[in-house]
């Protein structure tokens, strides 16, 4: 698991286009850490009240704050803003394309703190930035595995190199299911403690298939064949028949795999030459969906069997 650290630069990388952010001053503060995902409006701090000032958060100056600052005398305004900058805040964002006060630029440079501007209204900026920061600070890891979405079920295929993860995913795409990521999958925990999988960086939407090389999935199969992220519901370990740990032919053994501290249902599928794994993976996903709805075929059959057997017992007596 990667330690979750986010700098202003990391935030900008994701948020710059989405939230139309401009870096106005204080570029030397790009490396500064943002330690909390919430966004703060420093209204009380501007009045000089610094108890409980959330200085680890991104600070936003919206309509109200700007109007309040404009009502202050020059010297006073500078002093109040300086008090905020002195507390080592990660960065300041001015929303609604408000005029940037010269004091802000001067202090941003002096205290090496990024000063950003967005045309967005404050509410929209705060909503957008909170989600982005939540994702940036969420526990995350990169895992070797191919992720697909099968009728709404997020499935991560893992297994040794060459076992056929990508080939299986390709067969599933041909059946109309979606690719999330090939071979390398980024996983993070979201606010409802689900694991979310997504592709990593430049290789997004591409696959590497032995014998073909690299292919671009949406160009070949259409935009509906890819997904940018998906909740993980099932981990399938493709393994050679002899290496399988505890093959359970009754289907009752509920394996779990812990990913970032969250238990995800898991199964092991033995891969033998000529076995059509895609079909089995597809059915495994459907079965997982059924289990989520409260039906467990293996358990129900066993219960039926036991009730039949116990009737027989009575008949014998």
């Amino acid at each position, binding site marked *: 698991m*990667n*330690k979750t650290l986010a700098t202003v630069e990391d935030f900008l990388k994701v948020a710059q286009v989405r939230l139309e952010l401009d870096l106005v001053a204080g570029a030397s503060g790009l490396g500064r850490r943002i330690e909390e995902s919430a966004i703060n409006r420093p209204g009380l701090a501007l009045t000089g009240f610094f108890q409980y000032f959330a200085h680890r958060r991104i600070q936003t100056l919206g309509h109200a704050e700007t109007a309040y600052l404009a009502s202050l005398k020059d010297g006073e305004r500078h002093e109040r803003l300086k008090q905020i900058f002195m507390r080592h805040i990660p960065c300041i964002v001015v929303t609604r394309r408000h005029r940037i006060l010269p004091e802000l630029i001067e202090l941003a440079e002096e205290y090496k703190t990024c000063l950003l501007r967005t045309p967005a209204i404050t509410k929209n900026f705060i909503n957008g930035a909170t989600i982005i920061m939540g994702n940036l600070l969420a526990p995350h890891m*990169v*895992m*070797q*595995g191919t992720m697909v979405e099968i009728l709404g079920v997020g499935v991560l295929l*893992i*297994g*040794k*190199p*060459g076992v056929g993860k990508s080939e299986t995913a390709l067969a599933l795409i041909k059946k109309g299911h979606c690719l999330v990521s*090939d*071979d*390398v999958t980024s996983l993070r925990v979201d606010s409802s403690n689900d694991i979310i999988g997504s592709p*990593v*960086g*430049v*290789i997004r939407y*591409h*696959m*590497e298939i032995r014998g073909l*090389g*690299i292919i671009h999935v949406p160009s070949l199969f259409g935009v509906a064949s890819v997904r940018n992220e998906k909740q993980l519901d099932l981990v399938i*370990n493709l*393994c050679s028949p002899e*290496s*399988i*740990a505890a093959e359970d032919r009754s289907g009752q053994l509920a394996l779990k795999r812990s990913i970032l501290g969250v238990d995800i249902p898991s199964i092991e599928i033995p891969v033998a030459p000529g076995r059509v794994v895609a079909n089995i993976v597809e059915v495994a996903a459907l079965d997982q969906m059924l289990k989520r709805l409260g039906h467990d075929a293996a358990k129900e059959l066993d219960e039926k069997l036991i009730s039949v057997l116990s009737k027989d017992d009575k008949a014998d007596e």
Partner: protein
Amino acid sequence: MSNVGHKQDANDRILVREVKIQNKLGLHARPAALFVKAANRFASDITVEKGNSKVSGKSIMGLMTLEAGFGASLKIIAEGTDAEAALNEIQSLLDSKFLEG
């Protein structure tokens, strides 16, 4: 993943080597393919680390996500009976600048 049911063998060794990307274009598709081809000739598990990222050395897609440009340092970890030979082979590939200068 790969260590599920994996038994520690007396001959298994873990070797780590720091290397640098020496070709100008960095670890793009062709060098990544050569790297993976070399790595796959060995039984050892091979992992490549750059900063916080850690991927399998036997995966082209994995290596490409590292976005390792000219001069980037990588840590290559080989685990298995032929770990040393694998590292030597990969090292010589990097030293040859993947034959592209």
